[in-house]
């Protein structure tokens, strides 16, 4: 696989994860458990969408396309579903706030590690986006940790959180599964290590946060078992993309 193609795939996987995660957070506006949480979670969603936009810009740079709003929208919203490179964790439609919170913590823990990997990227713009994002991620984690500190301390809430962990946990491995082009992207100096190398530290962080829980069950030691999860879409993807495109589809040619 050629380097530019590998780099594109790598950036696209990162951008698509951020885009979908941001969208998922924003869907809590108005329905989060309390008003202050509405604001916090949508603010975090905005940050993730901001990261996605910056990463999509890098993809357009690579293609030699000027990063106009229309070009960014086309890349973010107009691909056929097989053109997306997101993981199934960010596609997943959560059943309740507990699942959303657990995913928020797991995703942001992983995301901070992922930004670390590109903080010294050979692509200067990517390295500079990483510096900005890492500052924001510290607060995202602090928000999720502050909630979990309180909830894991109360027996009933703890049960619900661990149940939610059980639902979300099977999707963790796919989060760390790299795209096919990652090796080429790494040889171009894009990242310091493979996304797959984050699986073990992520497992350890999850255990440190939630304890050795029955809901986790047996964990996979490494990513032996590649399933090309970033090139196949889960059942939740299409409805999600439809919700994301809802306004855009009213008038596809509209200029904002």
């Amino acid at each position, binding site marked *: 696989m050629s380097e530019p193609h590998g780099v594109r795939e790598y950036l696209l996987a990162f951008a698509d994860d951020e885009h979908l995660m941001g969208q998922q957070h924003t869907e809590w506006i108005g329905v989060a458990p*309390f*008003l*202050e*949480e509405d*604001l*916090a979670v949508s*603010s975090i969603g905005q940050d993730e969408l901001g990261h996605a936009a910056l990463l999509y810009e890098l993809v357009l740079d690579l293609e030699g396309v000027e990063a106009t709003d229309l070009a960014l929208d086309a890349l973010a919203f107009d691909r056929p579903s097989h053109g997306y490179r997101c993981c199934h964790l960010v596609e997943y439609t959560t059943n309740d706030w507990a699942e959303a919170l657990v995913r928020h913590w797991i995703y942001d823990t992983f995301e901070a590690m992922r930004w670390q990997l590109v903080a010294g990227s050979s692509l200067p713009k990517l390295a500079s986006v990483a510096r900005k994002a890492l500052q924001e991620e510290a*607060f995202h984690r*602090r*928000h999720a940790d*502050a*909630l979990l*500190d*309180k909830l894991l301390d109360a027996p009933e809430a703890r049960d619900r959180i661990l149940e939610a962990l059980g639902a979300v946990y099977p999707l963790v491995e796919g989060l760390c599964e790299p795209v096919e082009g990652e090796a080429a992207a790494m040889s171009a100096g894009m990242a310091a290590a493979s996304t797959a190398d984050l699986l073990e530290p992520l497992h350890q962080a999850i255990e440190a946060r939630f304890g050795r829980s029955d809901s986790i069950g047996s964990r996979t030691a490494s990513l032996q078992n590649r399933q090309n999860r970033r090139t196949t879409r889960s059942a939740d993807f299409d409805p999600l993309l439809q919700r994301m495109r809802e306004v855009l589809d009213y008038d596809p040619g509209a200029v904002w």
Partner: protein
Amino acid sequence: MRVYEVFVKKDGRNEFRHVGALEAATDELALVLAREAYLRRAEGDRLWVVRRDHVVAAPGDFVDPNADKPHRHHDGAAVAARRMAARQSPG
């Protein structure tokens, strides 16, 4: 949940100003949520949250008697009025 009062200080100014209140379960959550609710547009550079039940509040009529002490206002209006009256008096 507890109610917290939120205070923000702007860069270059000395005083913290009260900007609102919020509900939170812990001190840490109060800080994190205040950051998003009141500082998301960088409205200040320092933040205090204070538990409302830690505020020492005076009863409502605490300062009422001081409302009727014009001699403590040093805007000169009382003296000026007396001088004006003295000038206009025939003697």
